C-alpha cells in the first residue's frame, strides 16, 4: 500500500519565513532519513511557510481566493512523504522515525487507489 506521512510542526520554531539555521538542521536530518528510506520512499517534499500559502475556497460553485493556509492552526503542515509499505504497522514504524525538530505530529494517510 501507499501512505502519505503528513508532517505537522509549529513552523515558528524555524524563524520568519522558515529561513533560520534551525531549518538547515532539520533539512539535514531529512536528507539522512531519505537515504535510510531508500526505495520505500515514493515521493514527498518540504513546504515553504504558511505565510506563502494561497487558498482557493469553493463554496456553492463560487470560488474565492484568499491569502494564507486553509485553516489557522497551532501546528502547520510543513511537508510530506509518500511511502510504500506493506501495511499500517510498517507505515507506523516509518512514521515514528520521521525527523521532527521539536514537538510535532505525523499523520498517516493511506493513499486512494494505490498505484
Amino acid at each position, binding site marked *: 500500500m501507499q501512505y502519505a506521512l503528513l508532517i505537522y510542526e509549529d513552523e515558528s520554531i524555524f524563524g520568519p519565513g522558515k529561513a533560520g539555521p534551525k531549518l538547515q538542521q532539520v533539512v539535514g536530518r531529512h536528507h539522512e532519513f531519505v537515504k535510510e528510506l531508500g526505495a520505500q520512499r515514493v515521493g514527498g517534499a518540504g513546504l515553504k511557510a504558511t505565510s506563502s500559502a494561497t487558498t482557493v475556497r469553493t463554496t456553492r460553485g463560487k470560488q474565492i481566493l484568499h491569502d494564507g493556509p486553509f485553516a489557522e492552526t497551532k501546528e502547520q503542515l510543513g511537508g510530506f512523504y509518500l511511502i510504500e509499505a506493506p501495511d499500517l*504497522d510498517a507505515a507506523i514504524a516509518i512514521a515514528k522515525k520521521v525527523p521532527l525538530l521539536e514537538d510535532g505530529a505525523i499523520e498517516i494517510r493511506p493513499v486512494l487507489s494505490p498505484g
Partner: protein
Amino acid sequence: MSGAALERVFREASGRIVGALAARFRDLALAEDAFSEACARALEDWPSKAVPTDPAAWLYQVAVRAALDGLRRHRTQEQFVMQSLPEVHEQAEPEHDDELIPDERLRLIFICCHPAVSIDARAALTLRLVCGLTTLEIARAFLVSETTMAQRLTRAKGKIADAGIPFEVPAVAFWSERVDAVLDTIEIAYAKAHEDAAASGTHAHFAGEMLFLTQILVQLMPAEAEPAALAAMVRFAEARRPARVDTEGLMVPLSEQDPRRWQRSLIDEANDYLTRAVAIDPNPARVIQAQIHAAWCSRDNLEEPPPWPQVLALYDALLFRRDDTIVRLNRLVAVAEVHGVESALSHLEAMDRELLRDFAPYHAVRADLLRRAGCRDEALRAYDAALAAISSPAERQWLTRQKCLVVVP
C-alpha cells in the same frame, strides 16, 4: 436444540470462525457477514433436520462457502479468489472442528484492539467478533443506542480495512506495545462494567464475558505475565461484587466489605492466575496491581485487621513502575491508614489541584482525609466537588452519607 442452546453454540463458535475467516480472506466485514449467514442457515436447517455432531465445523464450512459466494459477487475481488482459494466440497459429516478451523482468535484480538482503532470501538469490536455478543447487547453494556453502536462498529471495521491494519500477530518490535493495547482495552471495558457498583443485569452479563475473554488471552499468550495478571484482577474484582453494595444500595468501601460475602471459587481461580503471572515475571505493573487485589482478598472476616501495611508496600512498588494519579491517590489512602491522616493530607495537598479539578476520585479522597483531620468546612466543600463529578448512584449515596458524618460524626 432450543433457541438458547443455539445462541450458545453461535456465541462459542463466533471468535474461532470469524477469526479463521478473517485471517483467510483478510476482510473483517466479509468474515462477519459470512458467519451471520451460516448462523441464519443453521436456524433454518437444524430445527427441521438433525443437529450436526460438530456444529462449529458445520458453521465454519457453511461460512466459508458464504464468504466465497460473497467474493464472487464482488467481482473486483475475482482475481484473488481464483488464485488462492481452494474449492470447498460439500461433506455429509464434517471433520472435527479443532482440525478444521485454525485458531486465529489471537490475530483477531490484535486487529480489534489495534491502537489505530478508536478506543471507544476497540472493546466493542472485540466483544462483537471474539465473544459473539450482539450489537444490541454491546450497546446496552456501553449505555448507548443500538444505532450508535452499530455506526461505531461499522466505522471501526472501515478504518481497519482502509488503513491497511495487518491481519497478523504483531512483529517483535511492536509486541509489547500491542499487547498493552489489548490489555488496556479489556481493562477499560471491565472498569466500565464495574463502575456501576450495583451491577444491574446487563453489566453482570458483560462482566461474565470479560472472564471469558481474559481466559482466552491467557490461553493464547501463555508466555506473557500480564494477561494472566489481568485475568486474576478481573476475577478478584468479580469475586467481591456481592459485597460491593449494601442492602440499601450504598457503596461499601473495600476495607468494610464482609469477606464472607466474597465468592471464594473466583478468588481461588484468581490466585491461580496470579501465581502463574508471578512465576513468569513478577515485575510488570499489572502483576503488582493483581497482588494488591490478592492482599485484600486474603482477608477471611471483618475481625481480621485490613492488610494496609502490605497494601502500602505494594503501592510503593507500583508507583515506581506506573506513576499516575490514580496510583498516587490509592497509595495515599493506604498512607493515611499506616502513617496517619496528617501525613497523607500533606502529600495530597502537594498535588496539582488545578489539574485534578474535575477528577472525582481526587475530591473523594481529599474529602475523606479532611473530614478525618477535623477540617469541617474544607471537607464539606471537597464532598460537594466529588458529588458534582460522580454519576454512579451507589457511590453518590455513599458520599452523601460520608458528608453527613462531617456535621454529625
